[in-house]
Each structure stands twice: as structure tokens, then as C-alpha cells.
């Protein structure tokens, strides 16, 4: 029997309706592409990443998490001019990790969600940086202060995104 750090109620598995499963990631990718042109500061956020973490922790299924992350990432890649798979790989890892951790940790509280988002934001950036620089040959510079502040900003927004997802998720 696996040891978990959650109460009986907290290991509850949720699901999302088909419209929510399709429209929420689509809206996240759309807003990520559209908003930074109107509000340049918004480029610091990564809405598709937050939605991937939100879906993965609610479903608590590693397979569902990795496929959700993979599809959202590939959709995000398709809008760029870089090779398809950079975001795909990073979000696959995040989706798998977040759902696996969601089984073991209590992710119903805002504090836990905040820390979880910072952690997976860093994981996402490390995977993306490694693949982009090592495989695709993009010129990139790693900056810890930038990553820290971006992680903090995304974690704050992440708490709000989780609250929105709480409203549309359904108990199985």
C-alpha cells in the first residue's frame, strides 16, 4: 500500500466535462498568445502551464496528466516558429509529475498550490532550457532572479486559476 500524505477526502479524484477539457486549455493558449500584445507584462505568465498543473492535480492520474500536458504543449508549440516538441516535452513532464504528486500531497489548500506551482514552474523551465539549448541550439541564458520572480508571479496567478478550475471540476 502506497504511503500518502493526504486525508481520505483529499485523495478524491475529479474529472472535467468534455467542453471544459477542450475549451479551458484552448482559452489558455489563446490568452497567452493574445494578451501580451495588449499588456506586455503578461508575457511573464504561462497560462498553459498553470492549466496543465491544475488539470493534473485534480485528476490525479499520471497518464491523463502526461497526455494533457503533451497536447497543450504541442498546441503551444504550433503557434511559435520553433520546432514542435519543446513545450510538448516540458509540459508532458510537468503533467506527469503534478498528477503523481497530487496523489501523495494535499493540493486542496492555497498554500500547497502556491508552492506546487513554483516547483513545477522551475521544473518546466529547466526541462525547456535543457532541450532548447542542448538539442535545438537556441541561444539562451539562465537567470535565477528572473526565474524566481516569474515563478512567484505564476504561483500567485496559479492560485486563482486553481480556484476557477475548482468551479468546473466534478467528483467522480
Amino acid at each position, binding site marked *: 500500500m502506497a504511503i500518502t500524505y493526504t486525508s481520505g477526502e483529499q485523495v478524491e479524484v475529479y474529472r472535467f466535462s468534455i467542453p471544459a477539457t477542450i475549451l479551458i486549455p484552448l482559452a489558455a493558449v489563446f490568452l*497567452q498568445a*493574445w494578451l501580451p500584445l495588449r499588456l506586455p507584462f503578461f508575457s511573464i505568465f504561462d497560462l498553459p502551464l498553470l492549466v496543465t498543473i491544475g488539470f493534473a492535480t485534480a485528476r490525479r492520474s499520471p497518464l491523463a496528466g502526461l497526455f494533457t500536458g*503533451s497536447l497543450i504543449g504541442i498546441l503551444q508549440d504550433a*503557434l511559435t*516558429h520553433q520546432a*514542435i516538441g*519543446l513545450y510538448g516535452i516540458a509540459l*508532458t513532464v510537468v503533467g506527469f509529475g503534478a498528477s503523481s504528486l497530487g496523489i501523495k500531497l494535499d493540493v486542496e489548500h492555497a498554500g500547497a498550490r502556491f508552492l506546487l506551482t513554483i516547483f513545477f514552474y522551475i521544473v518546466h523551465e529547466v526541462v525547456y532550457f535543457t532541450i532548447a539549448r542542448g538539442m535545438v541550439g*537556441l*541561444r539562451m541564458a539562465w537567470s535565477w532572479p528572473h526565474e524566481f520572480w516569474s515563478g512567484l508571479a505564476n504561483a500567485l496567478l496559479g492560485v486563482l486559476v486553481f480556484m476557477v478550475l475548482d468551479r468546473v471540476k466534478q467528483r467522480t
Partner: protein
Amino acid sequence: MDVLGRYRNLIVLVGVLFAQILGLAVQVNVKRTADSEPTRLIRIWAVGMITPLEKALVWAQTSSSNVWHDYFYLRGVRAENRGLKQQIERMSLERVRISQDADQARRLQALLAFKEQFISATMAAQVIGGSGSELSRVVFIDKGYNDGIRPDMAVITADGVVGKVLEVYRVPSTSKVLLINDQSSGVGAILDKTRTQGILRGTASGEVVLEKVMSDETVPAGEMVLTSGGDGVFPKGLLVGRVTKVAPGSELFLNIHVRPAADLSRLEEVLVVTKIDERQAEPDQTGAVRAVDILAERLPAVPSKPEDAVKSSVPGTVAPGTIAPPSPGSDAKPKAASPEASTASGSPAARKPANSASSAGTGSGTSSGTSPVTRTANGAAKIPPKPVKTATEPKPQPAVEDSPH
């Protein structure tokens, strides 16, 4: 079998990651070997899903903004109109000076059989979205294949160069534009005063750097950077930006930072250069217009003689030596009286050059109190007798008017 079931999740994860890494490797290899990468079906689907939403949102935003600014919020429009009229007058004088310089340059270029590039057609497009990634500085515009956009067309604004068309889509009709501050972008550039050439590249942080300039060159901060035309995408002489910082770079080259003239973070409307003509320069045969001529056009008119007035009162005839006022429905350019007619009446007035006639037409159309001007054979401006207004005489149409649109 039990092991497979136990590690099923991990095996699927490794499989999915492996598939994506394999796909990535294939794409990187294609990019390195082929000049142009084919557009992937998945990109077409993604663009097909996202850009219609962006188009609809931008249309709604633009429409509501237009209704507000064009029909309700008209405060200060008259003052702005007056200011713009003054600006037109100042620019007319400036144009004379510049056209003289340009004509001289054309004569020299013709002597050298120099071929120039001209932007002969552009298409206005609206920026509807971006990529959503800081490492991919591209924007989507609302014009695509069906509108005549093709890959590698230059994209500019009134301020300066923006980038080039990267991919063009049929359905929905949209295009992906690579900005000059993307790290995969490269623009042939030349410094305005020192005429030093280099390659303009973007960086990962979104800055623009001029590369391949030798460290023994002197590059002052603030110098303008123009397109050199050497890349085959941008015509020569377009403003790219200004030098902000010069520092020693790697090897023997300088590290020159350039601030783009166009605000790449707040793009709304752009122009796609759809046609560039290349032709040999020809000197302007019509002759230069002097500043004094333009000023003379704005002098008050002198009343005409009675016999001229009688002749001009007949509909369809024009007093010799005068320029006919524009008729309603026609364009604002008045027709100059023929030299023969001027000679027949004994007037020494000569026909005005075509470009001067057009500026006379503009003058009579834009401001009241101005009169048409004839020119003597030696080029001096002469104020002609003013035709007497009759009941049938049409009034010149104002060229600029306050319109609700």
C-alpha cells in the same frame, strides 16, 4: 507482465517523451539541411483554431474604438486639423529642398547606371496575436495567402522595419511574421553616416544587435541604422533603429546595441511590402520647384481685366494665361492653359511643370485666398489676372474637410 503493469505509467511517459524527442530531432535536421521548412499540418490546425478567435476579438475591439473616436469623442479635432494644415505647408517647403537633393542624386545614379529599389505596393494589415512565447518573437496578421501575402515579404510601419513574413496560411487567411528582435532573424543593415555594413540580429532577451562590424570602426551612439538591401528581403534605405550602446565584442567585432524604431512590443497595424520594383534611376526632367514658387502660389490674387472676365464668363472657356479651376466631380488638379493660347493672347506666360501644377491645385484646394500662378519663361512666378466669378463658375472642392469617417 506484472512488471509491465506496475511500471505502466513510467513506460508510457518514456514512450511519449521518446516520440517527441525523435520528432524534435527530425525537425532540427530538416531545418539544418533544407532552406525552407514545410509548414506542418499541426501548425495549420493550431492557427486555424486560435486565429479566428483573435480576429473576432480584434475586430470587435477596433469597431467599438472606431465608433467612439469617429462619432462621439471628437474633442480637439478642429485644432488638430488646423495643426495638420500648417504641418502640410511646412512639409511642402521641405519637400522642395529634398526633391532638389533627390534629383541631383538621380542624375548621378543615372550616370553610373545605378539600379534602385522602389516599394511599389504595400498592404495594410492588423496584428491579431502573438506566439505566447518569449523565445519565439512572432506575430500573426489578419492578411494571408488569399490577400496576396507570400513568405519573405518585408513588414514595416511608418516608424521603421518590423520583420518579414515567415509562413502564410490560406484558411484562415493569416500570416506569421518574424520580428527583427527574434534570435533567428537577420537583416542586412548599414549605418547612416559611416556607411558601415553589418548584420542585425535579435537576442534571446529581445534586444537587437548589429553584428560583424569591425572593432576599428567608429560608431557613435544615436546613429541611424538603415536596411542595406543586401538580404533580398528589405529594400535599401528603410529605417531600422538607432544605435544605443557600442562595446567591444567577441573576436575583432564590435557589440552594437540598436533600439528598433518601431515599437515591437505594441504593434497594432503594419504594412506588408507586396511589391518591390527595381529600375534604373532616371533624372527628373520636369525641373525642380523652388521654394519661392510655392510661396508665390500662396500670395493674394490680383483682379482680372474686364475683357478677360467676359471671355471667362463663357462656360467651358478659360482666360488665357490662367489655370482653370477644378470642376465639381473632377480631381482637385486645375488644368494649365496651353502655351499656344498664352502666346496667342500675347502673354509671355509659359506652361508650368507638371509637378508644380499639381501643387498649385493643392494650394487652391486646401486654402481659400490662394490663386493659380503662371510662370514666365525664365521660371519666375507671376500672378495672373484673377478670373471674375460668374454664376456658372464652380467652386473648388476643399481637399481636406472634417469627415465623420
